[in-house]
């Protein structure tokens, strides 16, 4: 009987630890993920423009490194830094960066070239990427 009670207590503690581990699991991030490929903002935008279904299959949910010229810097509604990359007057890729990238982004200005590792979400007005980290 004593053994059975001990077993129940151990089981309860394990379940409790598992519950807290699941409830407090950190959100998805890409810091330790390798980029699937490196591509320019122009190439990525053109792939989506040419065949959105195919590009979606190839890129949505995938981590890629995108390079391009900064067209605009802004903050979103949670004060996370956002950059629009493009060429000429055309916006091609919107990237929301992780909040801790704000100080690094301060070193870049409109018109500068930048490389960002981020996860592709799909295409709206531009190709949209999330969880961005500025590549060194």
């Amino acid at each position, binding site marked *: 009987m004593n053994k059975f009670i001990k077993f129940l207590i151990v089981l309860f503690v394990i379940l409790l630890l598992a519950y807290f581990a699941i409830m407090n699991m950190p959100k*998805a991030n890409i810091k330790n993920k390798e980029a699937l490929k490196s591509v320019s903002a122009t190439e990525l935008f053109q792939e989506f423009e040419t065949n959105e279904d195919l590009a979606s*299959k190839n890129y*949505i949910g995938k981590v890629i490194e995108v390079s391009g010229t900064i067209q605009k810097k802004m903050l979103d509604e*949670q004060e996370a830094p956002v950059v629009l990359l493009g060429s000429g007057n055309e916006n091609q890729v919107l990237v929301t960066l992780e909040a801790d990238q704000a100080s690094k982004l301060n070193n870049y200005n409109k018109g500068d070239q930048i490389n960002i590792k981020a996860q592709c979400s*799909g295409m709206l007005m*531009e190709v949209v990427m*999330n969880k961005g980290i500025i590549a060194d």
Partner: protein
Amino acid sequence: MAQSFDTRTAHLYVKSSSKFMDVEANNYQVYSDVNFAAATVNFTGLMKSWEFEMGAIDRAFNSDRLNLDGYRKFTFEGKILDPSAIDLSTPGRYEIKVKGPLTIGANKRQMNATAVCYVKVNGDIDVESDFSFKIEEANMEQINKLMRERIPQVVSLDSQTLGISRTINVKLFLTYNPQ
């Protein structure tokens, strides 16, 4: 005076309660444009841009194994029912009513909402809205079918097992800039 405004960073917050917990998610990458002269307002966003408050759900949603084909985007194409209720030349607080279809994949439903608009001195417009909708029984069956198809089969889950409520609460926050 500008009549057309847009934003690429509208924030949608959704909350659904289950018998175990509240499921909350945020999307900070919603595109929206509004034209007060034409009384139209549109929203479009990507399903993959949702960020769940609970880390375990967020990781599952961001995994490559979750197949969102056919449900990549959601769109709302609305009409402003009372465009004269807002005076863009006078900074202040205004309320407007909006109605139109919300489309997710092949599913379409009519939505009504009231939005509070704050016209700012610099010409931008802050908008807040708070509304809820109920998923029909037939659509819950579709959600169960999708969960069976798209979630790995070892995890045998449906909306009833999870106790997911049919009522979804939505909050919207955005700042429109003149186009």
